[in-house]
């Protein structure tokens, strides 16, 4: 059950290329944070303290912190974010010691059905790595070896993968401009990888993807072509993040010819089986 609470900023560290790692903690005396799953997210208030109009709405951010082990009560969590517009620019100026409202955990989180021995292939576009990171750490903790394919614009954006590499996650990189790793998009990297894996790919790998919409659509197409299961964590502007505005929907179809249904990304998602999404 999500909790709406004011969290204290412990650190708001600039990692380069507009990427920031934010550490939030429950102030002393306040209840511990409810436990969360990898892939769940938080709605965080930005800008001025107190009810503010600028911006009016909170913003959704994946919980970058891996879920607490053995359901131990957590008193802090991290958010990994990239400055995009006014809200994230304001967040980047927020100073340690101040508080931000935070409603979390929200959404379904990752829960890919696991065939015995299968490995997770995490396809990340830019800051999409933030939602895949805790999943990868969990895999490592459980003794498995996830592989992350990371696509971004240019070498400077490798800031977006630094914390994951530090955590021991294997990452292969593609950049649009070829300044680091392979040249091309994350979806191309995925395609080449699955081709190299050959026909057994569909039993060996489960794909979880998060990034810009076009990247996820591309990844979903590639995965379908190779017959590999694929789960995507979708994004949408969100007004509430907890299901009451019905503003964040995505069209899904339970099968070819089935009627289009709109599902809330904040409740029924953000993680969907790529096969049901009406791209």
């Amino acid at each position, binding site marked *: 059950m*999500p909790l709406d609470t004011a969290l204290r900023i412990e650190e708001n560290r600039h990692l380069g290329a507009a990427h920031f790692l934010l550490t939030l903690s429950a102030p002393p005396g306040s209840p511990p944070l409810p436990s969360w799953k990898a892939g769940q997210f938080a709605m965080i208030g930005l800008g001025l303290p107190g009810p503010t109009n600028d911006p*009016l709405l909170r913003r959704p951010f994946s919980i970058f912190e891996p879920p607490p082990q053995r359901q131990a009560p957590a008193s802090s969590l991290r958010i990994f974010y990239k400055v995009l517009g006014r809200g994230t620019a304001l967040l980047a100026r927020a100073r340690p010691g101040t508080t931000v409202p935070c409603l979390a955990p929200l959404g379904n989180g990752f829960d890919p059905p696991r065939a015995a021995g299968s490995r997770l292939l995490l396809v990340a576009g830019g800051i999409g790595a933030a939602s895949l990171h805790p999943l990868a750490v969990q895999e490592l903790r459980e003794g498995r070896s996830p592989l992350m394919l990371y696509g971004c614009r240019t070498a400077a954006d490798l800031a977006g993968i630094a914390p994951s590499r530090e955590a021991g996650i294997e990452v292969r990189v593609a950049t649009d401009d070829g300044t680091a790793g392979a040249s091309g998009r994350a979806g191309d990297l995925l395609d080449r990888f699955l081709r190299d894996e050959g026909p057994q790919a569909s039993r060996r790998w489960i794909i979880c993807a998060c990034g810009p919409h076009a990247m996820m659509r591309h990844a979903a197409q590639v995965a379908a072509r190779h017959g590999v299961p694929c789960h995507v964590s979708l994004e*949408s502007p969100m007004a509430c993040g907890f299901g*009451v505005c019905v*503003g964040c929907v995505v*069209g899904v179809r339970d099968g070819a010819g089935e009627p289009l249904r709109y599902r809330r990304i904040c409740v029924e998602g953000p993680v969907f089986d790529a096969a049901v999404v009406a791209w």
Partner: protein
Amino acid sequence: MSAAAAGPVLAVSAGPLALKNPVMTASGTCGYGVDLLPHLELSALGGIVCKSLSLKPREGSAPCRIAETPAGMLNAIGLQNIGVEAFLRDKLPELRRHDVAVVANIFGETVQEFAQLARALDGADGIAAVELNISCPNTAKGGIEFGVDPEATARVTEAVKAATRRPVIVKLSPNVTDITLIARAAAAAGADILSLVNTFVGMAVDVQRGRPILASGAGGLSGPAIRPLAVLLTYRVARAVSIPLIGLGGIRSGADALEFIMAGASAVQVGTATFTEPGAAARIVREMEEHCRRHGVASIASLIGAAHQHGAFPPEAGPAGTAAAAG
């Protein structure tokens, strides 16, 4: 015993609708009420108004459905809802377990659909009132909104009144030249209560892509931005009709709620504020109580219409007189 010691009385009655305090959540901003359960005690509120219900489930509009604007937001949800049957079957039983007035909001494309919906709800226990969302197209009149047409407003109100024993709240659209005409038509047709306002129509353009942000093009503006517009409409309608009013539009604090009360509303609804803070409505109740305490107000009902006690402001004259004052 002094008012301060006993605590101020927050209970109000809006005609036949008795509320333990004046704060309700607005339609379309609290799901079917149960969606708020993780975030607040429903019993802390005067009432909740469920998402607009239609006879059949509706999938609503294509995304993108929302856009943030200065101190506000646009929405084009397209009235996605589970339909009246699923509401009665899956949501109402849970709602009945909470000490809160449950208002079912309905909309149809014809007068008959409105009446059918009212009848479908009339059999069920635990519904305190029915609210009519008349900001929707009337297919019989070429798609003109019911709510901009006094005649259509009256027909819908009459038909629903005849179909239900519950108090009927008519929810007014603000997108009209003279809202008092619609208000009077609804009152004359038997409405027990008027709620106002629904959203103002607006548009935001994505200038990077050169097209409207919302897939539907236009949408409804809500949030603090519209509060001064909604307060004036409440003030005007309070002078035009004698049935009770429920005010809403941009309320996010106790003080905001009191603007509507003083403008003449007997109760208020909280919409967009719930998005930015799930427990907003409960906080607003506490802030209103605190205001009464600080100002030695024994009963919040004594503040209803307080802003009218200062003589006739130009708003009396309707749009003409007031606009003359601006500029």
